[in-house]
């Protein structure tokens, strides 16, 4: 009679997940019974499964035989009372109970009598993962468990998936946060928050098609991608907004280039990936946002993604853009959104979204994962992973609605699109300040692209002959108007005005310790230099020459911080670099002195 490893059954019944898989190998047990169970409907192939009862002579416990061992049963190798040595087993947890699965074994002897008088093992309080919630009625691990799974992620062993009722037998739900390539018998239950279109690609290595979805549960988000044939199988299965059980997908390292989802991993959906729609959607949250107020868009870097929510104040018409890369025309539409921070910003929709966007009223729209651009100051753009939801049922949306209906509609908003010619955000960067001889020597602006630089210089001379020009008073139209006798006519707007609005157009010689240069300033620059409007200065020039000269003299010799654009200009066969002032800032001596002290303390000055 064979010697059984007594005590193993009890240990298998009581040990926590991490221990079990190491425990089992090499133990001798007797199979008291081998019974076929009817195949569950969810298995992909209708194989038989065998339930076995293993005994160590003292206790007996139930287990399942892995399907790869089915042959042993059908061939008669293992049956009632066979003594075997378990080589490998796994343990799943289903509905408060643990389920042992024997993955590998080898037969020691057959046809023995029942060894010992095994009884049912003592009942044990099921303890699965440390710090797990006690039978919490949630489908996915509570945050405490998921934090322990996060730690387990560092080690190779995993704490088990949560207990708690899951809807299906044989599957317990794993948190998305706990996914890693090291364990692959998991099932996640998640909502599809975004499904992309099917995209085809072709490059030197070949071509194919793909689509991806973003899956979200309470613990996190993860991206899943399907390629080629899998696309055909799964594309229609996934629907945005619905919840699915997904298992047997491959966990890979995330390709951050293609996605901005915060997860180190992503899923590859394969031919054997199982996707089942789940009808019990409690516990799986709707979209998670972290909204940025529009006024702080300036602080975000270009190409960063963010979430915003706002009222759509203006919907532009559909336009079309030809993509330089693919020579295809893509429809686009611009919206202007505003929010409580009293800022407005332009947001661009592309493709189908642009075509389909229609609203009559001014809805609250939430955008997740839109890209920050610097077109005209700051702008937002939808990317493939962005999600737009119109009038979402979340608190911020209601707050915005209330604000807008109350006072918002009357307010005027500060726009992020600068009217200045500068396409880039013309901020003054003290760290990158240059001196004029450096600017000239490094030939800034000589190449075709305009370049920006910052400097501090003193006005040496202002060309006082042509200080301003009569401009069209229409907002944002600054075209020169022509005196047609009984009025001033604007060619662009095709309107005639009684009086034009004068705008500065100045040529100034500025100098610093190294060199002198000519800068061109526009209206904003003139306002800063003179402290008067161009209209006023024009008046003074017409009426009182002495006062005008005094004004000019008074404004020279003043030092400012400049932010400039250097651009090449061809004027009558002569190509020259012209420096245009994007920003002119009077000196705050306190600030400047502080910066100088800092500079002296820094390593540069040692």
């Amino acid at each position, binding site marked *: 009679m064979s010697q059984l490893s007594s005590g193993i059954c009890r240990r298998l019944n009581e040990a926590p997940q991490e221990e079990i898989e190491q425990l089992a190998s090499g133990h001798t047990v007797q199979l008291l019974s081998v019974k076929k169970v009817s195949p569950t409907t969810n298995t992909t192939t209708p194989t038989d499964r065998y339930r076995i009862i293993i005994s160590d002579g003292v206790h007996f416990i139930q287990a399942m035989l892995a399907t790869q061992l089915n042959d042993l049963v059908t061939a008669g190798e293992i049956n009632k009372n066979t003594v075997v040595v378990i080589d490998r087993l796994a343990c799943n947890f289903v509905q408060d109970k643990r389920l042992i699965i024997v993955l590998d074994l080898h037969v020691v002897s057959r046809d023995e009598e029942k060894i010992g008088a095994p009884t049912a093992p003592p009942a044990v309080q099921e303890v699965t993962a440390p710090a797990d919630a006690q039978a919490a009625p949630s489908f996915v691990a509570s945050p405490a468990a998921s934090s322990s799974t996060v730690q387990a992620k560092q080690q190779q062993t995993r704490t088990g998936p949560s207990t708690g009722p899951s809807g299906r037998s044989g599957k317990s739900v794993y948190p998305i946060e706990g996914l890693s390539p090291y364990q692959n018998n998991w099932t996640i239950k998640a909502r599809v928050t975004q499904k992309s279109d099917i995209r085809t690609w072709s490059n030197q290595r070949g071509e194919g098609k793909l689509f991806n979805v973003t899956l979200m549960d309470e613990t996190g988000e993860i991206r899943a991608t399907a390629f080629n044939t899998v696309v055909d199988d799964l594309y229609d299965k996934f629907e945005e907004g619905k919840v699915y059980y997904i298992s047997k997908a491959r966990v890979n390292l995330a390709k951050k280039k293609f996605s901005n989802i915060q997860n180190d991993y992503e899923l590859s959906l394969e031919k054997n990936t199982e996707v089942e729609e789940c009808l019990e959607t409690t516990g799986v949250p709707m979209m998670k946002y972290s909204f940025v107020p529009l006024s702080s868009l300036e602080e975000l870097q270009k190409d960063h993604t963010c979430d915003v929510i706002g009222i759509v104040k203006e919907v532009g018409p559909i336009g079309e853009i030809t993509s330089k890369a693919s020579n295809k025309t893509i429809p686009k539409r611009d919206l202007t959104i505003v929010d409580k921070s009293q800022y407005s910003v332009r947001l661009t929709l592309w493709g189908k979204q642009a075509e389909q966007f229609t609203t009559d009223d001014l809805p609250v729209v939430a955008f997740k994962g839109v890209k920050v651009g610097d077109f005209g100051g700051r702008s937002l753009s939808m990317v493939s992973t962005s999600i737009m939801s119109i009038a979402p049922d979340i608190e911020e949306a209601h707050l915005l609605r209330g604000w807008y209906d109350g006072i918002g509609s009357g307010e005027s908003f500060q726009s992020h699109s600068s009217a200045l010619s500068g396409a880039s955000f013309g901020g003054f960067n003290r760290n990158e300040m240059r001196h004029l001889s450096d600017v000239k020597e490094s030939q800034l602006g000589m190449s075709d692209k305009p370049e920006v630089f910052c400097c501090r210089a003193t006005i040496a001379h202002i060309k006082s002959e042509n200080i301003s020009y009569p401009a069209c008073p229409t907002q944002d139209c600054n075209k020169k108007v022509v005196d047609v006798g009984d009025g001033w006519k604007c060619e662009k707007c095709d309107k005639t005005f009684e009086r034009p609005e004068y705008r500065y157009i100045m040529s100034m010689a500025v100098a610093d310790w190294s060199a002198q240069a000519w800068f061109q300033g526009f209206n904003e620059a003139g306002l800063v230099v003179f402290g008067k409007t161009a209209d006023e200065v024009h008046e003074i020039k017409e009426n009182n020459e002495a006062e005008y000269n005094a004004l000019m003299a008074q404004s020279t010799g003043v030092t400012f911080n400049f932010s400039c654009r250097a651009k090449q200009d061809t004027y009558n066969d002569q190509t020259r670099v012209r420096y245009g002032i994007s920003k002119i800032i009077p000196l705050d001596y*306190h600030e400047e*002195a*502080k910066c100088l002290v800092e500079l002296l303390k820094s390593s540069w000055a040692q």
Partner: protein
Amino acid sequence: MSDISMRVNAGRLAGLKGRTVRLPCKVLRLADDTALVEASDGGQVEVQRKNVDVTATYIEVVGSVVSATSIKALTAIPLDSEGEINMKLVNDTIRLSFESRFDKVFLRYTDSI
């Protein structure tokens, strides 16, 4: 004594007894012949000002050092700006000016400091 006068704060007075110095300061109390001022490092100094007029809140006292807390004024230069002077900035400057790396930038007393 040469004609050099360096800008100092209260802490530096002790090492410069007998020297002529410049002390930028804020006037705290004005009496007939004296004044109590606060230097840029916060230290308080008594100014003996027999015939010297003090006309502003922030002044620079040029005088000879009597002790670590007292200075005999030769003249007082008004420094008022439209309000407050950033004394911290002044103090930073004074501190920096004594560093050896700036020996060529500032005039120093010919005897060792």
